């Protein structure tokens, strides 16, 4: 069984965000980049399926500038077999549909049973690309997967919804988006890191794929402005030495001043 894992290479979740001079993107100096955490669950599950079935391949795919190749190498070090890089140098912004379209174009010609995504790419936090990709590929999808059973030609997936799980039966091939809880991702071993250097990364150019959204004039969603969130008011401190008085005062403030209880 073959898996394709589509990853996003994003600013580290611990990174402080600074606004760039253009006022609508982030200042990338000093930003540390990581494979989006949800994509790690996706990759891990693809590797486990391969190991459990004793065969098949795991291919990782991303669209982005040169640095995105580092993300692909990290995935190869963890055990993926090969990778595809869609070189988007010169295209600083691609909306969700454009991203899905570029990934779909790059995935064409491959033969995959599982097409994995993280449930969202941290940063843009849209949760759009996976299901959009499924629509463009005319495949079924199950989003927010936290548990998966693989049977012959089909799967049973548990998907997280508010306060419950939906248990979904789905034919293969299918697009799946991984949610935290699905598994515990492994770290790359030293041997894996060495082996990754020899694994192939195929390169495609975004400009050579048919992705109209790569032209800003065709963007289906655009960022007009980027701001830091408005500053919050200064914290009103309640003395904590007398717990009973502190508890009462907190309740009073929430009721009379903030009017939220």
């Amino acid at each position, binding site marked *: 069984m073959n898996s394709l894992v589509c990853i996003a290479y994003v600013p580290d979740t611990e990174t402080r*965000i600074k606004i760039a001079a253009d006022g609508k993107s982030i200042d990338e100096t000093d930003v540390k980049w990581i494979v989006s955490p949800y994509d790690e669950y996706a990759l891990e599950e693809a590797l486990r399926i391969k190991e459990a079935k004793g065969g098949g391949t795991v291919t990782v795919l991303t669209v982005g500038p040169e640095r995105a190749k580092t993300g692909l190498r990290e995935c190869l070090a963890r055990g993926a077999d090969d990778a595809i890089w869609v070189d988007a140098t010169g295209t600083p912004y691609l909306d969700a549909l454009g991203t899905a379209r570029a990934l779909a174009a790059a995935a064409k010609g491959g033969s995959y049973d599982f097409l994995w995504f993280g449930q969202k790419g941290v940063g843009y936090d*849209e949760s*759009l690309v996976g299901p959009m990709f499924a629509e463009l590929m005319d495949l079924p999808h*199950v989003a927010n997967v936290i548990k998966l059973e693989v049977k012959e030609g089909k799967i049973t997936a548990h998907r997280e919804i508010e306060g419950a799980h939906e248990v979904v039966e789905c034919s293969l091939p299918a697009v799946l988006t991984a949610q935290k809880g699905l598994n515990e991702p492994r770290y790359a071993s030293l041997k894996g890191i060495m082996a990754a250097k020899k694994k192939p990364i195929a390169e495609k150019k975004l400009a050579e794929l048919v992705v109209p959204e790569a032209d800003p004039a065709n963007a289906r*969603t655009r960022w007009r402005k980027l701001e830091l969130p408005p500053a919050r008011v200064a914290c009103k*401190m309640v003395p904590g030495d007398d717990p009973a008085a502190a508890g009462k005062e907190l309740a009073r403030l929430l009721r009379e001043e903030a009017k939220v209880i």
Partner: protein
Amino acid sequence: MKFLVFIEQRDGKIRKASLEALSLARKLGGGPAAAVLPGRGVTSLARDLGKYGAGTVYVADREELALYSTKGYVGALEAATKKESPDAVLIAATAMGKDVAPRYAARHDVSALADVMELRVEGDRLVAWRPVYSGKARAEVDCGAAKLQIATTRPNVFPAEGEDGATEPRVEPLELGDVAPRAKVVRVEASESKEIDVSEADIIVSGGRGIKGPENWPIVRDLQQALHAALGASRAVVDAGWIDHQHQVGQTGKVVSPTLYVACGISGAIQHLAGMSTSKVIVAINKDAEAPIFKIANYGVVGDLFKIIPEFAKAVRAAKAE
């Protein structure tokens, strides 16, 4: 501007987040909006939508729609779109809405303004503010020149405004073709507890490493119950296995915007702040006066949370009993 709003129901109950989206559509459109309501036995629910701004409700009431399926529910939205030809579609950014919106958008060759916290109309364009980098920044976004504009609205942010005396909506049944899905929900399993989920709670009480161990959850739970809140948690305690990840608030957990967020023993790592800094009122109880959580809290107490939380819970109960 003509709005169509996707209405979500579960077990015959309309979701509040959908009423919020519907009220917003009425406000932005300056009059009644159209709505689409898929499900089984839902026709009787359609009338209630008038109060919240529905002029027409397209109802897809079928046995096969008893449980959610991407194909069936997106199909219903699609059928309503054909009849209504809207300029804009609003969908609550719930688990279901996040599943429907991208498939529907891609089918129409557009994208979506996802999880918006503010929405306005400029000429014939929707313009939104949405949190990015998990609330560490916010972006003003629009749909470019796209003909169909789609936005998903974050639950708990926009008011659901019912107006008494609103006229009853016109209810129009939808004919759907084959809705047999390739991905079929066969059953829904409730989580071990029938708790309110943090993503749709009005009040959240969260515990972090400061509670010292899972054996101390009852102390936090007591406050949670006094406030009728949902229980949240920091990544540290989820990763330590003290509680299930569905409670996790933060950049790799749920991103929430409740009216009141009470952080108990949470220092406020940037990871966590990213998930809850858009809360309206934040209370922090922590023994460390230097904890970053106090930088974003409205009210703070430095002290022993094992003594303060029970007293706070008691005072909340007393205040509510007044």
